[in-house]
């Protein structure tokens, strides 16, 4: 009777949970309020992309790569194009490299603004969510102007880019940068660097120490927030990035300390917004005239790649961290013999799961949101449902019907319809 009773509670968070934007499952073992173990289960968004890619040709895989994720769609087909170019020894015109930089940095701005809003939302600052997503509309308009689409702008082609940046686009981009510098960034800095409530809430929560970040290969802002000076654009001497003065942003330049917590990750994102705008301005200045494609016609690419043999790796710093694509070609085959990709959320998720041990349960949503998880990127592999049995799969509409039924038991005046709206930000 006098012995102390210890009991652990297991709480599943997900697959569908209000705190998570996309389906993923964390099984959290609790001792009181303290987390002692976090287990991650993935695979709720499997689409079998690697399997599909075995049946596609080189150009089709480019568009498939773009649809891995809606937020970093440019990063994925950019990296794939780089891997193929390295494999086949294709030289990209310099103007195309500059256009890749510009679109890539515009994408980084919109992704970081999105994440700032999401983190603000998880701590209850919904006004910040709406305002930062309102500011994000400006860069989405520019991307729509350049690529014809808000997401999946299909900017890349193997050996160049598909769309040029004209004088008109240039003026619009400079207008946008002026707007961000004058009106958006001061407010964002006010909230994420100087607001006492935000600092109190985000400081010392979800700490990823530098040693854990190295051990678990954290990527992108998650790693840089822990003080790891690592950025693929800088380490890999990628494209024309070295001419534009890119360097890893760490929170030390802004706040003077590195703790590796959620606050530091947000500081890195704010710093990268500033850096991206500078890079875009320099790229627009230095961009030479010339052609934008190595091959004027797309069928020439297939013709050349059909004879290619070898393997190549492409790496790029997406807004969330390092994306890495691998391709292998066999002569006589019009598609890749092997295509493999790795996206930053995969190692980051396990790093943050490790870092959550010893924290409080209330910090889970904000810590997970702070790595900017993109589960449709992570769950890209694998395959087809093999069930032939009688297992019934409930669709979203079924679940909504059940949910509305339950609400009607409480309040019969509810008149909602079970409509499919889609869950997950990559479907935005």
């Amino acid at each position, binding site marked *: 009777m006098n012995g102390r009773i210890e009991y652990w509670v297991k709480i599943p968070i997900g697959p569908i949970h209000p705190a998570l934007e996309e389906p993923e499952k964390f099984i959290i073992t609790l001792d009181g309020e303290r987390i002692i173990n976090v287990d991650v289960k993935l695979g709720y968004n499997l689409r079998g992309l690697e399997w599909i890619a075995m049946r596609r040709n080189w150009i089709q895989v480019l568009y498939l790569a773009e649809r891995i994720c809606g937020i970093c769609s440019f990063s994925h087909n950019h990296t794939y194009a780089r891997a193929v170019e390295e494999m086949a020894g294709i030289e990209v015109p310099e103007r195309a490299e500059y256009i890749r930089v510009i679109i890539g940095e515009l994408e980084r701005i919109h992704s970081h603004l999105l994440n700032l809003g999401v983190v603000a939302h998880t701590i209850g600052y919904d006004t910040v969510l709406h305002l930062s997503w309102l500011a994000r509309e400006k860069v989405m308009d520019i991307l729509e102007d350049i690529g014809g689409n808000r997401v999946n702008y299909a900017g890349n082609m193997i050996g160049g880019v598909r769309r040029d940046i004209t004088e008109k686009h240039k003026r619009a981009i400079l207008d946008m940068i002026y707007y961000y510098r004058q009106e958006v960034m001061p407010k964002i800095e006010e909230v994420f660097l100087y607001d006492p409530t935000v600092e109190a809430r985000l400081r010392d929560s979800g700490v990823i120490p530098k040693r854990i970040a190295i051990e678990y290969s954290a990527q992108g802002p998650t790693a840089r927030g822990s003080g790891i000076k690592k950025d693929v654009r800088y380490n890999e001497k990628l494209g024309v990035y070295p001419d534009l003065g890119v360097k890893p942003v760490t929170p030390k330049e802004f706040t003077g300390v590195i703790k590796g917590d959620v606050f530091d990750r947000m500081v890195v994102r704010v710093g990268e917004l500033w850096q991206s705008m500078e890079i875009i301005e320099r790229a627009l200045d230095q961009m030479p005239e010339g052609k934008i494609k190595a091959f004027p016609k797309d069928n020439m690419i297939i013709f050349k790649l059909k004879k290619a043999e070898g393997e190549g790796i492409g790496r790029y710093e997406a807004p969330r961290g390092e994306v890495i694509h691998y391709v292998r070609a066999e002569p006589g085959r019009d598609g890749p013999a092997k295509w493999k990709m790795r996206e930053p959320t995969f190692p980051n998720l396990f790093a943050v799961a490790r870092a959550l041990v010893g924290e409080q349960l209330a910090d889970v949503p904000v810590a997970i949101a702070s790595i900017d998880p993109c589960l449709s990127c992570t769950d890209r592999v694998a395959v087809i449902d*093999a069930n032939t049995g009688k*297992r019934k799969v409930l669709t979203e509409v079924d679940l909504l019907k059940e949910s509305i039924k339950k609400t009607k038991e409480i309040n019969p005046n509810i008149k909602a319809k079970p409509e499919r709206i889609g869950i997950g930000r990559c479907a935005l």
Partner: protein
Amino acid sequence: MTPEEFAERVKAKFEDAEVKITENKLPHPRKRIWIEVTREKFKDLVKFLKEIDPAAQFSVIIAEDRGDKLTAKYHWEMFWGQGKSLSVVIGTACPKDDPVLPTITDIFPSSLPYEREVQEFLGIKYEGIPDPRRLFLPDDFPEGIYPLRLDETGIKPEMVKNAGHPYRRESK
């Protein structure tokens, strides 16, 4: 450390490893190191990497079905602290009738999810893996089927549903 110096050091320690350096002709040329070793020497080589650079970052396992053998390529980024980093790819292979590779989770803990992924998709068994559960595939997925294999243990045509090729008429 330059790629050539690194290749020299690896060659001096592991005579039977095949080392080649490829160069990319983008505006700023960059080199990658590709190493092939047998699976018996593989773990020693990984330990050697960790000795050279304790902060090496493990990135990805690229596993493949190559006919009578299964290959796995591991990518590391090394010396990222010095500015221009080294991109190292180490490949190894195992025969299909004995698909076993040594685990490297004790040297690089971040490789655990990748090994779990390869284990369920390609059927390579990792010797001494601390957590052999499935990661991506659902729990009711049939045993003995490895989705990315190209032989009879891969996905059979009758298992494929709603995955039509856009150019094939009969697919729905």
